[in-house]
């Protein structure tokens, strides 16, 4: 592991050595991609296994830090056990193809920002919040490249500073460009604006669109004669230079991805650019991008809570995850012994962090604790003069060493005072003066305090940030205790205040499941994709011999649409849903299909199971795969299924949604996003997941968040029936069980492009005994309501439904019964 030299006065940016090498490799990889696949003919579609493409990344993988066996996330995808699964290559291809899909109808040639690819690769897929470390590298690269930096007291003279008002202006400029032609030029004369455009490209909001330009009178005009080949050459020239921006700033413009409805808010961008990225799951959501200090790196936090609520652990866990940012944590304890604290700290370091080259296993180099001895009198004065003043003295000595070229460190120091109440035994303590001194330390000061409303009332207006921890449900045996983090004040930034669920454990460390509104807010700028008309699932037509692969197919399930299967009894809804989601997709656009064939056409389904454990679905998947081997011989479909099984119990809505989103984000970062999601057994929420059942917002939130991902979403629900078979669906029963049917109603209201009902055959349909009738109730862009299919859950096969009486197409009476 890398160790910081004790005499080294400079903080080392996470991944600084590796990142530079990786960026060069990405440029090479993009060149290879453009050379082999840029014309989109599809004849030379790239595969992730392409040896030449892999070779582009050899310098990166041969870097000493990678050879030592650390940073396993670079080579391994999140589900892969192979050493060289080439996650980096998959991400490169995936991002390039996404841009191609975005620009398919235009004549332009576009690529993702190399930083966008880099940012994803440096992030540990299983731990999306580790993007904080990656973000530090990427943004520092941008700051140094464009010689700009957020307002800071220690800003070196060669750098220009920018603030929130500048960001607002730049965003306004971007807005006006996007409203006109969506061409955002490189503004070489406004380096901070250019940096911001690159930053947005790094976040995947913008992509780079190439083309030859001519400039005149400060106006850039498009050369109408520019051919696609010219644009490709322009891209190759840019990539070969291996610089973020070309010297003249003419080779490309920035374009906004259409799935971003709006640009991010200026305040969020300021948090991301000037704040401290928080490597804690969920913290990015609640702090909207980062923890913002004042321009002097000062921040005073009140961290309070009842005994056992996790205050000390919270502060220790924060120290651990901040250590790769070269943050030194000084823990001043009035209660525990330094030795005990050290042991607790070690137990709170997340397992994944220990495997990264950016983590220093020598904890003494980034954490130190001292037991504070105070007398009975003048405690605060004593602490102030003997600790705060002397820390200040030490740090001030260092400030004289201002180095002309160097940027200020991200967060040099965290000081934890545990607990502040012990220092305030006397009435005459001058707390205000004390906190003012704390605010001059260029550090994050965490003042830990037990529950004391009077004290909190006094201190809250002085501190910058207020976090209160709570441990609810500890007073009754009927509840599973839940840790709650209440964020109530953030002086220097916008944030998402409120009560959020949090967890503390050694293996995964500190993690927060933000409250539902915060989780929705985070994705608000991303538009809900309209079901894709380019790609469709032909599943419902496959059984017909005369299936044709064009838009006229009778019932095509459009890709990224939402499907609901519900009905009474065990009709094999999971098998039907999974068959649908694992079916290959077709496209009208053959080129696009070809390009995507090796990546996007592979099916990967996430099953959210509230019903059966993973084994059940693995078995089902194997049976479907066998079936498909014959059915889709020509497609060579590779499919993957992953299951997120929730045991019945005390699952909170926040954790439920967080875990699902985490899984989806994980797969994107792994280079293989999910193509479909199956929410199986929603009815099981009733009575078994009482916290989900009680929450009115869990389903709307989940569906609205899932809609932001490019996924085909299938929901299954088994309707409840009390009484005998004949009596099923009776109005009385439904009224009794209305509460249990809530998820179904939500699914219907929120999430249904295709609505199917499954039921056993009626008496008149005796010929289908043992099978189930699948009735289409409604379908987007189809007028086929009432069409029926026959589902054999044992054989996992769908067949055509034949009417007994040719004239009778639709049995209204029968249909309305099932509707209930």
């Amino acid at each position, binding site marked *: 592991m890398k160790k*910081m030299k*004790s*005499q*080294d*006065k*400079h*903080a*080392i*940016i996470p991944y*600084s050595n590796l*990142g*530079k090498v990786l960026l060069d490799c990405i440029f090479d990889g993009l060149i290879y991609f453009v050379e082999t696949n840029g014309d989109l003919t599809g004849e030379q579609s790239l595969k992730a296994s392409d040896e030449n493409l892999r070779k582009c990344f050899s310098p990166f993988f041969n870097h000493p830090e990678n050879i030592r066996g650390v940073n396993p996330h670079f080579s391994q995808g999140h589900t892969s056990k192979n050493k060289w699964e080439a996650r980096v290559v998959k991400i490169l291809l995936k991002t390039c193809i996404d841009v191609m899909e975005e620009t398919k109808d235009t004549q332009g040639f576009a690529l993702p920002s190399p930083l966008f690819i880099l940012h994803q690769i440096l992030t540990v897929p299983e731990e999306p919040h580790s993007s904080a470390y990656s973000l530090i*590298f990427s943004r*520092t*690269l941008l700051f*140094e*490249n464009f010689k700009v930096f957020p307002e800071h007291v*220690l800003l070196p003279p060669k750098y220009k500073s920018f603030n929130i008002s500048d960001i607002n202006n730049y965003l306004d400029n971007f807005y006006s460009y996007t409203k006109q032609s969506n061409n955002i030029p490189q503004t070489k004369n406004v380096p901070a604006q250019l940096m911001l455009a690159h930053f947005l490209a790094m976040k995947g909001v913008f992509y780079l669109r190439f083309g030859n330009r001519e400039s005149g009178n400060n106006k850039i005009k498009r050369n109408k004669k520019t051919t696609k080949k010219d644009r490709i050459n322009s891209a190759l020239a840019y990539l070969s230079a291996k610089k973020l921006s070309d010297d003249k700033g003419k080779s490309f413009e920035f374009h906004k991805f259409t799935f971003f409805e709006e640009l991010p808010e200026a305040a969020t961008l300021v948090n991301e650019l000037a704040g401290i990225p928080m490597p804690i799951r969920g913290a990015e959501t609640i702090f909207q991008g980062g923890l913002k200090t004042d321009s002097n790196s000062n921040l005073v936090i009140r961290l309070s809570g009842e005994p056992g609520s996790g205050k000390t652990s919270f502060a220790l866990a924060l120290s651990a995850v901040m250590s790769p940012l*070269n943050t*030194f944590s*000084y823990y001043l304890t009035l209660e525990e012994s330094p030795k005990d604290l050290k042991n607790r700290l070690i137990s709170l370091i997340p397992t994944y962090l220990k495997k990264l080259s950016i983590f220093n296993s020598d904890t003494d180099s980034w954490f*130190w604790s*001292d037991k504070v*001895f*105070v*007398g*009975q*009198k*003048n*405690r605060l*004065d*004593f602490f102030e*003069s*003997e*600790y705060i003043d*002397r*820390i200040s003295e*030490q*740090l001030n*000595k*260092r*400030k004289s*060493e201002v*180095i002309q*070229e*160097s*940027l*200020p*460190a*991200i967060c*040099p*120091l965290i000081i934890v005072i545990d607990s502040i109440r012990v220092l305030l035994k006397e009435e005459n303590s001058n707390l205000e003066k004390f906190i003012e001194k704390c605010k001059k330390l*260029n550090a994050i000061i965490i003042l830990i305090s037990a529950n004391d409303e009077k004290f909190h009332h006094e201190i809250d207006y002085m501190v910058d940030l207020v976090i209160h921890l709570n441990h609810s449900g500890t007073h009754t045996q009927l509840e599973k205790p839940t840790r709650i983090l209440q964020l109530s004040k953030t002086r220097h930034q916008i944030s998402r205040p409120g009560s959020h669920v949090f967890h503390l454990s050694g293996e995964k460390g500190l993690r927060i499941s933000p409250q539902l509104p915060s989780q929705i807010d985070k994705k608000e700028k991303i538009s809900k994709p309209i079901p894709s008309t380019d790609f469709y699932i032909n599943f419902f037509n496959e059984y017909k011999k005369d299936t044709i692969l064009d838009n006229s197919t009778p019932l095509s399930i459009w890709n990224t649409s939402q499907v609901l299967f519900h009905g009474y009894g065990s009709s094999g809804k999971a098998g039907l849903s999974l068959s649908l989601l694992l079916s290959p997709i077709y496209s009208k656009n053959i080129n696009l299909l070809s390009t995507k064939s090796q990546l996007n056409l592979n099916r990967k389904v996430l099953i959210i199971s509230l019903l059966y454990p993973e084994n059940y679905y693995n078995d089902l998947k194997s049976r479907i795969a066998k079936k498909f081997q014959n059915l889709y011989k020509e497609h060579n479909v590779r499919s993957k299924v992953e299951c997120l099984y929730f045991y019945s119990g005390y699952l909170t809505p926040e954790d439920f949604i967080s875990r699902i989103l985490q899984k989806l984000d994980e797969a994107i970062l792994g280079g293989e996003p999910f193509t479909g999601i199956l929410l199986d057994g929603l009815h099981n929420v009733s009575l078994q997941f009482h916290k989900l059942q009680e929450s009115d917002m869990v389903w709307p939130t989940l569906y609205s968040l899932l809609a932001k991902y490019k996924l085909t979403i299938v929901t299954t629900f088994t309707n409840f029936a009390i009484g005998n078979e004949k009596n099923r669906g009776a109005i009385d029963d439904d009224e009794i069980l209305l509460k249990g049917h809530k998820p179904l109603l939500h699914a219907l209201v929120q999430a249904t492009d295709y609505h199917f009902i499954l039921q056993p055959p009626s008496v008149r349909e005796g010929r289908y005994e043992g099978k189930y009738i699948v009735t289409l109730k409604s379908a987007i862009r189809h007028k086929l309501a009432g069409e029926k299919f026959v589902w054999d859950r044992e054989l996992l096969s769908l067949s055509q439904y034949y009417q007994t009486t040719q004239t009778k197409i639709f049995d209204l009476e029968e249909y309305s019964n099932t509707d209930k």
Partner: protein
Amino acid sequence: MSSKILNLIKSDETDTVDVNGEKPLLKEAINLSNEGTREQNDEAIIQLTNIDISLLSVYQINSFLSFIYYSRLFNDKIFRKIDSSLKHSFHECDTDTITKRSLLLRFVVNNFSNRYSLQEVLSEEKIRNELPWVWSDIASVYNWNLAEEEIGNIISKGDTLESLIIRLPYLIKKIDKEQLKNSFVKWYSNTVNKKQKQILQKWATNLNIKFGLSISAEYKLSNIPLFQESII
């Protein structure tokens, strides 16, 4: 002779006087002091050493010490004897008054001082006014908490602490460093003027005690990188 002295000690009550209005024990002691030959005195010492002090009450021990003091029969052997018995006696005591008194007596024995009469010592008043540090000094021998408290009281009264400076090395050598540091912090918080603060700081430095920021923390803080390495 020892039985005679022992009887005298046992019968010696504050208000017991002989026909001449004198305390018999004191009289006997003075007699021994003035008249006893060297051999007699040696004999007396051997016999006094044989007295089992642990059987005596605290008050009787006071009388015994008083006797030794005035009879000038004091030597190392008897000192050790009394010392060990007093330790035992001290541990038996559970009230503050008796503890302090025992300690005071211990001090008298230890210092063999002629500056104060036994009455003066026992009354405490004079000692407390003229030698405030004595309390902490004697307390330190058996009970550091008492010493810490007494010094704390002295400091909060604004004492210049000069007397304490002289006594301090003796005081400190028996105390665990961590405990001493803790005490220093408490004393420091009791200071009422800047001079006292400076003196305490100086002591602490001389004794290699750092309160407040630890040396390790100071070193580490002085090495925190405030700037970051360039990555381009």
